[in-house]
């Protein structure tokens, strides 16, 4: 199954017909969250493991001021940086005289929509298990990001004296219930902190594992996507997408590379023939007789 399939659903809700249109002008601190549901149909079954992404467009994670607005020392669990974050984090360095953990614009703007996937089979919604661990690089999870160290494992205590990022509804030590996915080592957080190179990007959100060899991971059929719409992008014309994709040995579907290889290959071949012809016809012109003296 080397074939890779991709399914993209834009749930920004700019079109009035979109179910998410009502959430378009949501703000960070709206409670309860605005939710919307988008139904879609899978034409093909997704045979192998499926990767679920969220995609953002027109979002400048590669802006210089954005990129530098973090303190890796703090994220690495350095206690002094925790309480005294780097100046690079300004203006998200402190809030009400308390150091922000994690500081900086990147952390502050962390994607916080919640996506849930249901298979609709004869009007019954079967939730699909979304695995939230294993989506970050091993080095990031184990080397680059570490929670502050101290007495005990109580994250709340370890983050004592810090405050949550301005936009966040809850502090960093409450990102997840599992201790190995909480605090700075929360994988959603880590994935977000690995900034994208281009203003249109997607980030791995969840994994859908193939359960057994007799059933495809996602059968063809009807599905619904439930969105807790928290993340405002409309003000800067951003778009949000949910992407489902399988991958092959060399990653996801990548038509550009294939087309480029075919084109370049044919050009090289053609060029080779032409040059061979030219060389055959003119190439033996340079002999010593040509040397003027």
């Amino acid at each position, binding site marked *: 199954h080397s074939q890779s399939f991709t399914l993209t659903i834009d749930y920004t809700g700019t079109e009035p017909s979109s179910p998410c249109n009502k959430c378009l002008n949501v703000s960070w601190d709206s409670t309860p969250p605005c939710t919307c549901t988008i139904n879609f149909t899978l034409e093909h079954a997704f045979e192998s493991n499926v990767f679920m992404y969220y995609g953002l467009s027109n979002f400048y994670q*590669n802006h210089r001021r954005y*990129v530098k607005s973090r303190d890796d020392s703090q994220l690495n669990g350095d206690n002094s940086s925790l309480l005294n974050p780097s100046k690079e984090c300004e203006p998200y360095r402190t809030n009400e005289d308390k150091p922000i953990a994690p500081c900086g614009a990147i952390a502050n*703007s962390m994607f916080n929509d919640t996506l849930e996937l249901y298979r609709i089979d004869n009007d019954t919604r079967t939730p699909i298990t979304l695995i939230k661990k294993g989506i970050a690089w091993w080095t990031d999870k184990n080397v680059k990001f570490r929670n502050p160290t101290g007495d005990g494992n109580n994250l709340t205590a370890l983050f004592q004296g810090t405050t949550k990022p301005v936009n966040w509804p809850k502090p960093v030590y409450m990102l997840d219930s599992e201790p190995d996915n909480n605090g700075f080592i929360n994988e959603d957080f880590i994935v977000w902190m690995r900034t994208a190179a*281009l*203003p249109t990007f997607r980030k791995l959100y969840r994994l859908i594992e193939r359960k057994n060899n007799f059933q495809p991971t996602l059968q063809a059929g009807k599905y619904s996507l439930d969105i807790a719409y928290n993340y405002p992008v409309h*003000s800067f014309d951003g778009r949000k997408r949910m992407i489902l*994709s399988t991958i092959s040995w060399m990653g996801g579907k990548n038509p550009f590379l294939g087309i480029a290889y075919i084109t370049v290959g044919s050009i*090289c071949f053609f060029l080779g023939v032409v040059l061979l012809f030219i060389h055959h016809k003119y190439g033996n012109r340079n002999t010593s007789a040509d040397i003027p003296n």
Partner: protein
Amino acid sequence: MDRKLRCQDSGFWGCLAAVTEVLGCIEVTGCCVIEEERRVRANAREYNEKFQYASNCIKTSKYNIVTFLPVNLFEQFQEVANTYFLFLLILQLIPQISSLSWFTTIVPLVLVLTITAVKDATDDYFRHKSDNQVNNRQSQVLIGGVLRQEQWMNVRVGDIIKLENNQFVAADLLLLSSSEPHGLCYIETAELDGETNMKVRQAIPVTAELGDTSQLACFDGEVICEPPNNKLDKFGGTLYWKDNKYPLSNQNMLLRGCVLRNTEWCFGLVIFAGPDTKLMQNSGRTKFKRTSIDRLMNTLVLWIFGFLVCMGVILAIGNAIWEHEVGVCFQIYLPWDEGVHSAFFSGFLSFWSYIIILNTVVPISLYVSVEVIRLGHSYFINWDKKMYCAKRRTPAEARTTTLNEELGQVEYIFSDKTGTLTQNIMVFSKCSVNGHSYGDVQDMLGHKAELGERPEPVDFSFNPLADPRFQFWDPSLLEAVKLGDLHVHEFFRLLSLCHTVMSEEKSEGELLYKAQSPDEGALVTAARNFGFVFRSRTPKTITVQELGQAITYQLLAILDFNNIRKRMSVIVRSPEGKIRLYCKGADTILLERLHPLNQELTSITTDHLNEYAGEGLRTLVLAYRDLEESYYKDWSERLHRAGSVPEAREDHLARLYDEVEHDMMLLGATAIEDKLQQGVPETIAILTLANIKIWVLTGDKQETAVNIGYSCKMLTDDMTEVFVVTGHTVLEVREELRKAREKMMDASRSVCNGFSYQEKLSSNLTSVLEAIAGEYALVINGHSLAHALEADMEVEFLETACACKAVICCRVTPLQKAQVVELVKKYKKAVTLAIGDGANDVSMIKTAHIGVGISGQEGIQAVLASDYSFSQFKFLQRLLLVHGRWSYLRMCKFLCYFFYKNFAFTMVHFWFGFFCGFSAQTVYDQYFITLYNIVYTSLPVLAMGVFDQDVPEQRSMEYPKLYEPGQLNLLFNKREFFICIAQGIYTSILMFFIPYGVFADATRDDGAQLADYQSFAVTVATSLVIVVSVQIGLDTGFWTAINHFFIWGSLAAYFTILFTMHSDGLFRMFPNQFRFVGNAQNTLAQPTVWLTIALTAVVCIVPVVAFRFLKLDLKPELSDTVRYTQLVRKKQKTQHRCMRHAGRAGSRRSGYAFSHQEGFGELIMSGKNMRLSSLALSSFAPRPSASWIDTLRKKKGGEGSSAGSPSGAADKTLRV
């Protein structure tokens, strides 16, 4: 004023050695008034001090310990590039702007400044050393009636100093008195004007009597004279002493740089000192030489800077628009910086941020790399064994390390003659006696055989008085002498009698000839070896040892040489009482004056003369005439009468001389070889083939210069015409030049008939003259040159001269040499090279783009002023065609590649700007940016810049045409630059957009996003390093182990450093500095990344390869063809191409070989210089121990006679 201040603070280095010496130099004051006349009073320091004349201290150094740092830094920051980087550094310290860490700039900047400063300091140290050496030479100064040893720099204007034989003259002196009678003194001016013959200077009679120090101490004459100037042959002034006025001329002056010869001592009054001396005035100013590539590079750097600003503006505008349209809305996630309230201001800041990140288009390492490459090339020159002269043990030396590539672009060579082209050794080479030619070496094959090929030289052991250094290869001449051939005897008798040579006899049988010109010396020495030994002379006699028997001839008259007569004669009475006139002179003159009986002999001799002349030998015709006693009496009476009439004396004498030198009998002809340096004709031939024009600038006489022109094949008989310009007035010179041009154009008009040249002429004089047919040569005299170099005629002169294949300027002063060079530099936009060996060439060497000094000889002034030095003219060929050509090629390739790689590197940021909100975010990791130019790409290109070669050295000598691209500046010019830039930009586009296309929606094989910023950075950086490495591989034409090592090493270094920088360990220590942790192994493990890198590399490289392939096939360069031929030849058998040797030509031209001046005949006859014989001895035996000289002197003193008797006594002594 500037000049006067120069000495003010010199010698601080020297203070370490000797503080007192330094003090001498400081005591110079600034005088702000331009000197209009100079007043100097002898022995009056206080009086002279108020004029604040320059002291005798010279200073060529630039810094001292205190001033070094500020001055040197100031100079360095005058370099546009350095200031630019300083400016960048300041920008980077502003946090709002800083898009890169400050260390990316300061590390290279400090490195650059340090390297340059160390180099400057070393150079200056050596200048201080040489200054000190000259300034600390000792001289004897008369202070308070006592002679004191003083250093040169402590000599003041107005001091009286004593010089001894063979000493250098310390300053410009007015000769007061000397050990010789009549205040005569002899000097050699070789250091000054290149003329090696001795010159006579004479004190004015009133001072000539001041023989001892007490008298001189009381001398209080005052000299009022012209201000310091650079005219070597003119001096005007007046001596006021004891209410009398005495006019002074150049004849009374001893100039700094001269050497006192044959004079035991002399006293002189210092008129000009130190920088005011004519020598120093002639040296010209030391200018920092830059190559045309340097200038081009600076221009290009400015252009790039402009380009940089443009990019900055574009991106800043982009930023302002973006912030206005998008950024302002995006503030919910990314608020504007504090203090930034408008999109416009943000754009303004972004402009500076972009200037910082795009600064790598003007790479700071460029200048360092260029210096390193040049240094490498200089070492190649220094280490070149083929430019090492084993005889003199002097290797070639690149004294300036910044000019190498200019050596590959030379179009004009200005060469000195004496000591450069020639060895200044005259050798009696051939002769024709009574229709028989002697001197050919039997087994000589066409060209002058090397020493090894020659048979044994003739053995002169029969003659105890023979000069052992003299060599002759034709034994038949000696046989003829031994067999008693009367013609041959008479021939050598003439040579032993007809000259103005003085002889010394240090001890019995050890003769030393003091000849005024080396030619005469050679002839007299030849006669000496063949058994006709000139032993001594008195004003009235000449004693010759003829085949062992001493015979004294009575010397009746010397009909001296002058330029118009081109001959000299002596009239002698033999012991038998017969009166005979012996004459030697130029063939053109002498052959007309022969007796009609000689017709047959004349024609044979003429054939011989032509043959000799064709070989470039300097010929003389010898003839004699028997005079009747009565006729001679009558003639000599008339001569006496004419001599006593002051007016029109010269004319009368000339007429009388003319009358007696008539109906002469031809004896034969001599041929003297003005020994060329080894390989000169071959070198000139090859350089000419390489399209280099060679001009000879010499202080020597026209005849000599022309002769050398022929012997070194600059002038050939195939030439259509040799124009000689000798006019004395502006009009004459202009007319002569005009005629020359007309002739050249007439000729070409006749070649291309039907073309209206007149029209063309009016439009463009140059093009017509450059397209002329036929080969012409121009010979111009110094005085004509003075007119030709005037502002209104210089262009005319230059056009005429440049249309000629060879140009010879004779009798030129050092400054004129420089002016000629300057003229060509000014109008021709060509690279000039001056080569010379003497102090008289210094100004020319300094003026030319490249100065070459011939080292290993006595004078070192030329070498000190030069940029390159070696000991043989022939090495010039190798310096230019091999080293120069390669240097140029390497430098050009280096620059092309350098700009390419930096554009490819930097422009990626520009494209990225469009996708990151114009926020000046860099594409790469900051360490990559810091190291890219220093580590990852510097060494391979350096290796190419140092070692590359397109064809091996033998080929560049074999095909001089390969030199042409350099002259035409084809390999690196604005066009090539734009091509490189275009290639760089093309690469940068692919470098950005291919990963962009791939990454847009690619994921890793574990499903995670691929398009994160750090992975993107690593991918682009890796493909960039690979592409530029492949490109340098393509550019490298000559692979050495070092090239391999550097290229593979750089790649290895890149990956090693990449993995190190991205390692856990470093991150744990400095989490905020090494944010890319884990990136390398995560990214480079992805097949997609490698596919992207491969695709990028192929797309970047394939067009280049295809283009080069096409060029090789369709429009190959000469070097490509040569390389191809070489490949073919390797398979076949090597064929040697022989240089075509020019055949002997049969022209006839005057070859009056004398390079001496008139007046010596008179001096001999008057006996004025007769003490010379004894005194000159002291020059060879400084402690006069030879007892017979003392005897001689005593006798002379005792008898009180003026001239006759001492010589008589000498004769007696000799015969004992």
